[in-house]
């Protein structure tokens, strides 16, 4: 079996398992496991977003927590004003997920546009540090801005609504997250197959040759970065609704690091890499977190081992290393 077919089989297995396990938990009345699967799905959405910048475009953004937090605060602030019946900038709050998601994506996209336009003037190590610094700027802003809880964060008392679902029920929330994840993966696959994706990957592999072919690296990369931020922002809005809480901790630099770790554990640039990586990270936390309070030490050792000796992540390990440009 060639490795492309192997990867598709593996993808189908991962997608099936992420559905089957919570389905079993729903039947067995284990809401904790459903919520865990929902968290994996939402983290995977965030990482699919980052995978556009990192996997396709080779842009190592160390600041994607910024978009996660922005999306989270859109959900939190909208729900806050809807709950208290107050207005923000002349608009009423809302407890409907669809307008919240739209706003979260637009806002994340705008901020990613500004951050990207500045950061993409540089490359390599500068790019990593600058995206990190912009995320820290957002983190400290959220920390010291008192109107929405500052350091204490902002609770969402009632989970926002989605037409036709009762989002307060874990199973409904899972279905929603799973559906959005599948849509995002479809969008990622479409993007990768499209001319735009080909251009983005060409720029990653050799910016000079791409430029010689008439592809403007800056414009294409910026669009990729904005799309990436938008999807991560969407995940942020969903994450805030899942935990019914948003705080500056969502923008912490460690979260940006974890998003990269998810992609690396799963496999860079792979369609299902983020899903596999999110499942490994959450699984690791739950399993080893139950055994020892020092589980992060073990996570660090595993991560170090993967980086030094097993590049390609889980999917690379199981499906083989294919299409280095892929």
């Amino acid at each position, binding site marked *: 079996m060639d490795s492309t077919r192997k990867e598709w089989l593996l993808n189908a297995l991962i997608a099936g398992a992420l559905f089957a396990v919570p389905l079993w938990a729903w039947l067995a009345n284990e809401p904790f496991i459903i919520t865990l699967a929902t968290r994996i799905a939402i983290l995977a959405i965030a990482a699919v977003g980052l995978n556009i910048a990192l996997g396709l475009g080779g842009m*190592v953004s160390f600041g994607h927590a910024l978009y996660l937090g922005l999306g989270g605060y859109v959900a939190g602030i909208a729900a806050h004003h809807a709950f208290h019946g107050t207005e923000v900038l002349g608009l009423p709050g809302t407890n409907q997920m669809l307008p919240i998601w739209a706003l979260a994506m637009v806002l994340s996209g705008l901020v990613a546009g500004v951050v990207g336009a*500045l950061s993409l003037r540089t490359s390599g*190590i500068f790019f990593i540090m600058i995206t990190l610094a912009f995320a820290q*700027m957002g983190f400290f802003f959220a920390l010291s801005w008192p109107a929405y809880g500052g350091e204490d964060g902002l609770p969402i008392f009632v989970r926002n609504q989605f037409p036709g679902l009762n989002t307060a029920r874990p199973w409904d929330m899972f279905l929603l997250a799973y559906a959005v994840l599948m849509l995002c993966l479809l969008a990622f696959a479409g993007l990768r197959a499209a001319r735009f994706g080909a251009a983005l990957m060409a720029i990653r592999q050799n910016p000079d040759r791409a430029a010689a072919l008439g592809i403007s690296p800056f414009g294409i990369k910026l669009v990729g970065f904005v799309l990436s931020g938008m999807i991560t922002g969407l995940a942020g809005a969903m994450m805030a609704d899942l935990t019914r809480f948003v705080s500056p901790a969502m923008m912490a630099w460690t979260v940006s690091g974890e998003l990269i770790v998810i992609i690396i554990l799963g496999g860079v640039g792979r369609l299902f890499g983020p899903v596999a990586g999110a499942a490994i990270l959450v699984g690791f936390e739950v399993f080893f977190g139950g055994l020892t309070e020092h589980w*992060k030490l073990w996570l660090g050792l595993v991560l170090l081992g993967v980086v030094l000796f097993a590049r390609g992540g889980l999917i690379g390990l199981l499906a083989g290393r294919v299409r280095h440009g892929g």
Partner: protein
Amino acid sequence: MTLALVLEQLLNGVQFGLMLFLMSAGLTLVFGVMGLINLAHGSLYMIGAFLCAAVAGASGNFWLGLMAGIAAAAAAGALIEMVVIRRLYARDHLDQVLATFALILILSEGVRMVFGPFPLYLNVPSALRGTVSLGIVDYSLYRLALIGFGLAVALGLWALISKTRLGIRIRAGESDREMIAALGVNIRALYTIVFALGAGLAGLAGALVGAIQSVQVGMGEPVLILAFVVIVIGGIGSIRGAMVGALLVGVIDTMGRFLLPRFFATFMDTSQAMGVGAALASMLIYLLMALVLIFRPKGLFPAHG
């Protein structure tokens, strides 16, 4: 707002800037010579602070603690370089970020396992307690000593790099790694020495700052990120750039936190002005960094032309 208060804040800014310089100097050297981005630099700062606090607490002597902190950080740096970092020089920046991120997890949990989850406290050495009169302001003697320390180390570093054989090798390593290896310099040993030197400086900064803050796990990362801002502003690989960047960041951050809330209070109600002022002040240095990037994308003092 009196002149004395402004002067005190200005001195605090300079002191903060010089401690940032100690952090940034190591980072920028490691990048300049080895082309490596080291996120775990903040962990070495933490190791310096913990060892200093532990040894000073046990022996009652701050200076013994300081020596232990520097030595421990430098030794940890040399060990990490030989076991992990050495394998990363030929890798891309993504691998370097991930491996050193993993090192942060390992070192932070390791320190938590050894020293427990609670913060340690480190007392200012008795000879440096109290204040000293600087004409219009009484200033903390310890903070003044930190300024002196920072300047002395900066001077020493300058002398090391421009006047000694090791310094020549470091500068040669910055401009052409393959060539100096071909000329017979033991490049592996040089890398280990540079890394340990940077680690020792980070440990020194951690130990010195540990006496005015609490010594706890995670203390290194906020400083690490500020050091990134410093070297982006100064130009990666440039020690002189790190000095200028560190002083700019230290003074602007400190003065912003002091002045902005007072500025907004002149036309807003006080509690609101505090909030807006504090929020904006926390973003100032990042805005400065953005401005530098717009006009000088390689930083103020680009290392290689």
